[in-house]
């Protein structure tokens, strides 16, 4: 009976903490809602937040694709680019079916229309790529998606007659507000709303039966298939879904909301690797974690640009300067990489995992598991690591 009561109190604690967690989450959202009204903050801070929201969408959707569904794609940025480029090209050139003699002029597309078409095309390409990727696993999948995104980038760069090359392509502006200050405020709320909506939709997917199937496939595709999960359908579905999300985010962000033009350099492997690093640091298997990881990492990278570590500690050089001066600006990516590697090795669920588990009360559940297993020592251990086939 004592044992039972302990469990009950733990569950109570868990519920209490979860409530606290929701409160904290609510406070964070409130902060973001209030932030643009803080007159002491400059537009720059809003700009940084806007791009922070964008990268949070990128990272959390990658977390859904790679962390939850186990599809290790490096093509995420390319899908974003497809959304943005298609929206831009449609708004500039319209659609031509030369052979059929049909031409839809650019005028028939509003900014919103072109964004929708960009999103749909990103989803369509996601469908094709997802279908092609069915046969490939892990390293092969990563390599194929790298090849795909590089091909796309080279094409955008080389066919400058159509895409503007490295000058970039400007999309039709989504918001046309003359007053700079209000404009930034509207853009801020638009991007924030997009982030929240994306997170909610992705959260809903991750916690629906589809999310359950995706996680089952991630754990063991063959076993999931043997349990009746239509692995083909869900694999393609998740590709289409995340491609559409990033395509939408890209098309909106580059419609003069976050940036005025999309350039092919944005599609380089480096940019993709940053997205991955954000997700890893925040927690690959948690949507909120990845989003927060992107936001915090970007802020840290930005902050480290300016930081100079000087260690006087009584040591001075001959002319009275500091003995050791270290400007982190040049080293910040190296340090970022070190943080990423150590996070992967020692905190696989991301640096934010302890907070998330604490608030969800999952750490208590884990203690229970350990105690239950201890009392249940009926095990004949099977050989580790052997493969079925």
């Amino acid at each position, binding site marked *: 009976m004592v044992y039972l009561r302990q469990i009950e109190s733990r569950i109570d604690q868990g519920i209490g903490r979860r409530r606290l967690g929701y409160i904290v989450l609510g406070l964070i959202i409130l902060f973001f809602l209030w932030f643009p009204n803080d007159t002491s903050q400059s537009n720059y801070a809003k700009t940084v937040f806007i791009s922070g929201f964008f990268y949070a969408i990128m990272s959390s959707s990658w977390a859904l694709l790679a962390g939850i569904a186990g599809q290790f794609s490096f093509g995420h940025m390319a899908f974003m680019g497809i959304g943005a480029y298609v929206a831009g090209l449609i708004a500039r050139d319209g659609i031509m079916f030369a052979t059929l003699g049909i031409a839809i002029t650019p005028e028939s597309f509003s900014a919103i229309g072109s964004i929708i078409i960009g999103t749909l095309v990103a989803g369509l390409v996601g469908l094709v790529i997802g279908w092609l990727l069915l046969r490939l696993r892990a390293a092969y999948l990563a390599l194929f998606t790298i090849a795909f995104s590089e091909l796309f980038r080279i094409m955008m760069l080389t066919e400058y007659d159509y895409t503007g090359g490295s000058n970039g392509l400007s999309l039709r502006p989504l918001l046309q507000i003359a007053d700079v200050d209000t404009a930034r405020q509207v853009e801020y709320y638009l991007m924030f709303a997009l982030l929240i909506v994306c997170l909610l939709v992705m959260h809903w997917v991750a916690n629906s039966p589809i999310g359950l199937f995706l996680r089952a496939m991630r754990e063991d595709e063959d076993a999931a298939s043997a349990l009746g999960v239509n692995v083909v359908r869900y694999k393609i579905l998740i590709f289409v879904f995340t491609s559409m999300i990033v395509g939408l985010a890209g098309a909106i962000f580059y419609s003069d909301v976050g*940036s005025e033009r999309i*350039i092919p350099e944005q599609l380089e492997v480096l940019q993709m690797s940053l997205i991955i690093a954000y997700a890893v640091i925040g927690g690959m298997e948690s949507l909120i974690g990845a989003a927060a990881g992107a936001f915090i990492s970007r802020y840290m990278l930005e902050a480290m640009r*300016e930081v100079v*570590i000087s260690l006087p500690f009584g040591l001075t050089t001959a002319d009275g300067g500091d003995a050791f001066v270290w400007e982190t600006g040049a080293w910040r990516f190296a340090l970022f990489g070190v943080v990423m590697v150590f996070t992967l090795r020692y905190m696989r669920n991301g640096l934010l995992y302890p907070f998330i588990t604490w608030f969800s009360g999952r750490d208590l559940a884990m203690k229970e598991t350990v105690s239950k297993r201890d009392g249940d020592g009926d095990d004949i251990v099977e050989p580790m690591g052997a493969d079925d086939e």
Partner: protein
Amino acid sequence: MKRRAIFICLIALLAVLPMGIAQADGHCEFADYTITIGGLAPLSAPGAVAGGVAMDWAFNQAADDINADCGVAIDGVNYMLDVVTGDSEGSPERGQAVTERLIQEDGVDAMVGVYHSAVGLATMGMLEANQIPTVFSEPWNDNVSANGILEYDGQPPRFEDGIDHVFRISPASSMVGSVVVDWLLSLGVDDVVMIVENTDYGQPAAADEAARFEAAGATVSKIDVELGTEDFVPILSRIQARAEAPDVIRILVTGETSFNLTQQMSELGIAPSEDTICVTNQFAFQSDQYWATVPDGNYCAFNRVGIIPSLFSDAAVELNAKYEEAWGDIIPSFAMASYDAVHILKDSMERAGSYSDAAAIVGAIEAVDIELSQGRYYFDYGSHNPDLPEGTPAFMWHQWPDPIVTVMQYYETGQSGLEAAVVYPEVYQTHGTGYIVPGTSP
């Protein structure tokens, strides 16, 4: 336990981030207010880091030199000058964000900078809207600082009256192209191969030069390459397989990619050779880097912006010495221009009698007449002289008309860029010849 240890390490790392700020010498009396100038340069990838680092150095060197000379003197008060450099990463999006930060958080009074034209194009609107007097020292695209951007990706112009606050002291790419093309045409060239990087620098420059060549009746074939390509042998073999060797190979590629290309070209014996002239770009002027990576590149010609070495003023020689001390190579033109840009702003603020009155400063810049490391600076067209004559391109608005563009040529392996021969225009010729044939000495 391990996790906790790592956590503590991370927190400790964050805790040890105090700021160190350099203190200036004490022989001048400075006012409390420090004039801040924002710099914009690519300091990390994917931007051209090497260029950005040199520009950043030049900004800070200019500020140091000005402060050592008691700063900016406005109405008898000496103000210290500080340059805050923002990292554009070569991307328009970042460039905009950083410009916004410089304007709003650092409260800059004026701006200098930009290396990449795409960044220049993207930030101009913001500079105009915030009324920041700006001197660009390196973007080449014709559209930068033009009087009203009429055609801008088919979009209507955002500022009907033009970009009034932005000045440029770097040449527009058509100004550079015309010199090189005139030189080559004067040598009787009629078969041109251009190797062009597919970027905002290469493509417009190539289009402009090609149009000039074609207008003069020469045939032009253009080859696009991607930046970062290392092996050019297949494409060079293709040039070599032509029935007749081209008269000239013009390289419009930047950075290490151009060095690889030039070296492989000379290793294969395509150019410079008796049949074919090799013309590369201003990157070859940094002779230490050039000879380290292009050991066979003797007799290559290159266009250079900025005053020719033999006419270097004392200020230019001194600046070059400082640069060589810091980086071990000859100063690139954009570092010189960046240095001058800060000085132009300083001078204009002193004449305007204000560091904050944008209209007054812009007026002062328009009226600038000052001798600096690159020569005498002045602006022909601006609000003081708003009517561009027929045939004058729109970009001449707020454009320094006189960046000296020369064609230089090496004639000894390992030669310093300062000693290379100036072959064009004739007024600047140092060795009395318009072209040094490979294998000979002037």
